[in-house]
């Protein structure tokens, strides 16, 4: 039978976002692929050249909307590097907790989309149900469930409300049992294992060379997490370990390894949260007013021409970098150039080539296990 090109087009339930993958199939086997991105290119980098440093933060939330806190945190770190601003320690703790809760919510969204891709529709409702708990916590911090606009250059917008710490502890402790429940449903299911193991091998050297980062290479046995290789915030004071899975095959990490890494990352995030709330300076049940110097320092608002700053940040999907050049419009109030590095932008072409040789039915398994989010890739 002749080979035919199938377009898993922009509108497709599997693609988790708006992009196209054209797949050449011989029967059920894939022989070639082409990935096309850029459907939701919104020109964020250009827009940011006309915005204040504070005004850019909401745009960064909308880069990867599933994982908004981490992206605005990443940008704000780069802006602080450029403007040479200080951040009070309590604000660092608050940012860390917000980022880790966001990581939990994002991984739950990933699992809630990954399960139905493999066929297990129950996971969607379970994961979204649990994600509600964390969205409620973030809503108390940032005001909305998805785009929070929470970090500020020099600190955070507002302090944790009174009682937030108790709610967070209760929810995280409940959630740890729920993770065990997910593992019970999935890891003991032969069908799940049969769909994910042996599919989508990717070796560590190939992945690093190709620019893939984050849980995807940690699944291949490489202990690389930007939270300790390029430390920032207060991750060195909080109890945690990077989640690394050693693959059992020399061919590299398969989809099952990547799934396990994210499950374990969720556990580590829970651990970090429970530890950070104990260690936060100023106490977990005090509330400082917005603008108080415990949570926000007065940062310079202008960056001279020639100054640069960048941040290397461990987002939920990989390493994200912001590179800012100062000296833009309004006599330096705007940056001259904002450049965003999206992990998924690099991962998708790599994964598209990785899929050659597998079956069509493996496409959702492989694609889903790399956790694409097109908002950040298209900027």
């Amino acid at each position, binding site marked *: 039978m002749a080979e035919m090109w199938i377009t*898993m087009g922009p509108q497709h339930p599997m693609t988790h976002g708006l992009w196209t993958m054209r797949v050449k199939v011989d029967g059920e086997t894939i022989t070639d692929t082409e990935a096309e991105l850029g459907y939701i290119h919104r020109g964020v980098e250009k827009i940011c050249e006309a915005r204040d440093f504070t005004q850019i933060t909401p745009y960064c939330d909308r880069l990867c909307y599933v994982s908004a806190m981490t992206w605005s945190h990443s940008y704000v770190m780069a802006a602080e590097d450029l403007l040479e601003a200080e951040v009070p320690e309590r604000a660092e703790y608050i940012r860390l907790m917000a980022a880790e809760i966001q990581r939990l919510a994002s991984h739950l969204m990933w699992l809630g989309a990954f399960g139905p891709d*493999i066929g297990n529709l129950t996971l969607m409702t379970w994961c979204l149900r649990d994600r509600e708990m964390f969205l*409620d916590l973030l809503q108390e911090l940032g005001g909305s469930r998805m785009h929070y606009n929470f970090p500020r250059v020099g600190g955070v917008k507002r302090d944790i409300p009174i009682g937030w710490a108790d*709610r967070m502890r209760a929810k995280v402790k409940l959630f740890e049992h729920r993770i065990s429940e997910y593992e019970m449903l999935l890891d003991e299911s032969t*069908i799940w294992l049969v769909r994910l193991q042996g599919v989508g091998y990717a070796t560590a050297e190939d992945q690093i060379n190709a620019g893939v980062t984050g849980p995807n290479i940690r699944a291949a046995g490489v*202990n690389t997490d930007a939270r300790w290789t390029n430390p920032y915030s207060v991750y060195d004071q909080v109890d945690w370990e990077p989640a690394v899975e050693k693959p059992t095959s020399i061919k590299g990490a398969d989809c099952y390894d990547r799934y396990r890494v994210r499950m374990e990352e969720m556990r580590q995030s829970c*651990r970090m949260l429970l*530890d950070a709330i104990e260690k936060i300076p100023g106490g977990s049940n005090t509330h400082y007013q917005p603008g108080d110097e415990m949570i926000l320092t007065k940062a310079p608002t202008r960056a001279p021409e020639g100054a640069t700053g960048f941040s290397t940040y461990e987002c939920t999907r990989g390493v994200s970098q912001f590179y800012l050049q100062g000296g833009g419009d309004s006599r330096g109030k705007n940056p001259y150039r904002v450049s965003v590095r999206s992990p998924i932008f690099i991962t998708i072409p790599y994964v598209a080539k990785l899929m050659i040789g597998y079956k069509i039915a493996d*496409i959702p398994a492989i694609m889903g296990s790399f956790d694409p989010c097109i908002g950040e890739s298209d900027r």
Partner: protein
Amino acid sequence: MNDWLNLYDFFFYKLHHLMVWLTAGTFLESSGADIGFFLATMIMCLITFGSIMSSMFVILWIERKLYARVNDRRGATTALRSLWVGENGVTAGEWWNMIPYGLGKPIGALNGWLNKVAGNDGHSHEMVNRVGNRSWYGVTIFPGFFQNLADGMKFMIKEHMVPERADKVIFEVAPFLVISSTIMILGLIPLSSGIYGANPELSVLFAFAIFGIAPLGVFFAGWSSNNKYTLLGGIRSAAQLTAYEIPLLLSILSVCIMAGSFNFIEIVNFQHSAGVWLLFLMPLGAVLYLVSMIAEVERIPFDMPEAEAELVEGWWTEYGGMRFGLLFAAEYMRVYAACILFAHFFLGGWASPFAGLVPGGPLIPGIIWTLLKAWFIFTVIFVWARTALPRIRTDQILEFGWRMLLPLSFLQVVLAVIYRLYLFDASALADTTSGGWAWDFMGIPWGVPILTTAFWLGVFWVFMNDENLEEDQERMFHVQTLTPAGKHTAGQE
């Protein structure tokens, strides 16, 4: 043992006498009996089809509600509280207090009890009330029963589209093949010894011959829609259905060997007169039948042909309106037929449990028992598997069917032959209310089924416990640590 509610004979004799009497002396005299037979069959078909279709609402209702419960989408009392909806969708809250004369108080008590037993109050998580009233044994009552009737009406008013470059003739013919073959089977399946549309002598053979026409319709649909996705879905479906026809037919063959007949009614009567349900004599066959049937009706875990993640409804994609509605209904009719057939083949059909031991005759008509058993199997096997399992990849499905189920079904046929020839005591068949004892073994009453069931349960237990624990440890997460972990251990307080 024939059921006491014998509608077929009732209508047959009544109409026979009526038509013979009516046509006496007219030019139709010689065919009066035939006309009577024709009318009786038509009425019986209507009754059978009507009962199956109206009881199919139960199937759809069970699926929705149980699926929602397992997905934790329903609290224990949501259905109860939502019964009364006022203007602007405002619920009346505790609406039972508004019923006059205090008649609503028991409902209020039920609501409170359910919340106490199965709601969040049993757990100490007041902070997390938002994440649903979790319980494993919530009760939902009738609201939602006629949802599927509304769905059917909705399908009727939707637009019927034919893709521009589709092969129009085959595009229209394909749904007919699927739907009509499914409905034709319903005429052959008896709901009781006296409620059936037709009862040819080889009814099992005939029914499964018709059952196997549907894959052809599926393939037609997939090809004619002129769409690469549907083509893939149709091909996958054709391969899968062909692969699983064989273990299905072989397991049914073993049932027929055991029972000594190709007739539904005789198979069920055999189970009663021999004294034990075939489930206990051939558990392997029952499992094979269930797995093959789930694959035949394309439910999760075998629903790769219509996998939404890749194929967006697969071979159904291009159908709209009532054609889609009928295909959808046909799928559930096939599921229902599979459940009823399982009840007949393995669970004793219309006999009540322990019918042979309970003195006196059956009180509840057999059709009720048949339907109850069918609903039970649907709930426990079909719906539960759907909620908990992901789907298997097509080549894995095919490998499973050809390489694992086929040899097992051969084994089952051989076992059936051995059982029937050497372990069956034909002289102990008794077509009485109390049944017979044809399966004794060396003096132990019902020895053969007891030993068989014990053996297969033992095999199952061995497979469950035989894990390579070391292999699991190797695959499981290994933390790469620098210093030993802190005091807090994830997952424990």
